[in-house]
């Protein structure tokens, strides 16, 4: 446990030392919220007359969910990339000769990603307070908890990809190819009920679907008990993927 906290703290410090990483994690998302949100709110996008009600629904419900999901996917890609860089650089190989376990190393990176993603979301919420009407109330905190649960589950996919993808060059594309289609059929853009049968079955076999359901439900004010099934499904995915990556983790 001591090693996990040391490594987590260490990796956070190391991340903060990379100027580009910090700008990408904190400043760019904030600017995007302000610019995009401002454009949408002002009816901005020049020449387009927005359907105020639909736009309001999208900004009000789907935008926070989409934001959380994209942040989670970016965290997965970052995790996959950093683990493969560590593998190629021989950092993992060096650690293998010590008593530290693969799960400790991956967990430290997952915690770092969660902390950074939460920081990103917090910055986005602060920047978007006026635009999207976000407030730091009980619902927002509940949403944050739901986002963490989703992230742990989604990051466990990253665990598995990071464990088996051989080089950093492959990591990003492999991650993107696996993750973005999952997001596309997660029910975020088109409701699950509108899918043909086989696609609905596939969607139900993927963790992102449950994340979207959970996040959206909590955001629109539904109760936690109503979403206990989503939480359970996400927990199962996390356990299965983590076990699989511990089994197939490649040190070099």
């Amino acid at each position: 446990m001591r090693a996990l906290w040391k490594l987590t703290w260490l990796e956070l410090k190391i991340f903060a030392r990379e100027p580009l990483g910090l700008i990408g994690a904190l400043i760019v998302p904030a600017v995007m919220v302000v610019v995009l949100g401002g454009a949408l709110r002002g009816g901005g996008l020049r020449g387009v007359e927005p359907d105020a009600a639909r736009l309001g629904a999208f900004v009000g419900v789907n935008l926070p969910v989409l934001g959380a999901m994209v942040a989670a996917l970016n965290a997965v890609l970052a995790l996959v990339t950093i683990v493969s860089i560590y593998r190629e650089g021989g950092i993992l190989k060096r650690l293998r000769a010590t008593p530290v376990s693969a799960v400790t190393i991956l967990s430290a990176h997952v915690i770092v990603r969660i902390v950074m993603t939460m920081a990103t979301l917090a910055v986005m919420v602060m920047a978007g307070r006026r635009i999207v009407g976000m407030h730091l109330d009980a619902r927002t905190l509940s949403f944050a908890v739901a986002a963490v649960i989703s992230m742990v589950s989604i990051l466990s996919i990253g665990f598995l990809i990071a464990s088996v993808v051989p080089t950093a060059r492959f990591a990003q594309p492999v991650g993107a190819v696996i993750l973005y289609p999952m997001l596309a059929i997660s029910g975020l853009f088109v409701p699950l009920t509108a899918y043909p049968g086989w696609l609905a079955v596939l969607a139900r076999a993927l963790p992102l679907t449950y994340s979207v359901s959970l996040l959206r439900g909590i955001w629109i004010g539904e109760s936690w008990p109503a979403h206990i099934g989503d939480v359970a499904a996400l927990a199962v995915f996390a356990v299965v993927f983590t076990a699989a990556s511990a089994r197939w983790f490649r040190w070099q």
Partner: protein
Amino acid sequence: MQPVVHVSQIRKAYGSTVAVEDVSFDVEPGQIFGLIGPNGAGKTTTMECIEGLRKQDQGTISVLGLHPLRDVRALQLRIGVQLQEAQLQKRIKVWEALDFWASLYPRAVDPKSLLEQLGLADKRDAWFMTLSGGQKQRLFIALALINDPELVFLDELTTGLDPQARRTIWDLIRGIRDRGKTVFMTTHLMEEAERLCDRVAIIDHGRIIDVDTPTALIARHCPERSVLLTTADDGAETRFRAIRGARSVDRQGSHYRIEGSGDDFVGEVIRCVAGLSVHVTDFRTVMPTLEDVFLRVTGHSIRD
């Protein structure tokens, strides 16, 4: 005394490529043991099997009385490892690396004194990426020593370092041995092995050619000695030819090269020179090196 490392007839193949074959040797406690040979000879494979990082296909290995794979947890606490071409996070600070490594072990030495021993005290706040090659290697030695191990593995530690940095590292390795630890190292630098190692195993194409002290290996495989001397005595040549053990005398003006073999050959030359009437203005003995031994036993140069 029981050997620290016992390797018996191990074999390891990657697909159809046999990396090591029928490799056996023992490492005695308190010594610097060198596994020497060219790149690709099987040094790293052998070492990583001993460290428990790889599994050999055949043969047995015992390290500190433990099985490297079955007892890997117990072993990791008692050995220190430096790997070839390992890196750390670019922006990790020197003290942070030591602090983290120390947290991995139930018992660790004081990082501060370790930094001082290795001459890194003034670099404690430097990022890994800003260190020179020699400083990085000294940090890796420090990490290998953090758990106060009984046995330290050093793989191609001085490759790519300049001669000055290399000498500093050599002194550090002797220091490790002098504190009672056993050092297992690999190198393709014969000079390094000869100066540093108490015993060496020569490996080539995955097979052990011979194991002994550098001195004994030289005596066994390259017993010839040469004496280079300069004298203006014209009558010297016939006298030199009469020296017991002398095989050839080569003369270039007043410069002579006398080649012979045997332990007493150089003594015979000295006694002969003492009997000359004219001053000898230069006298040097040329001893074969491990490099010559390697060439002799493998039939090719180590750089091929």
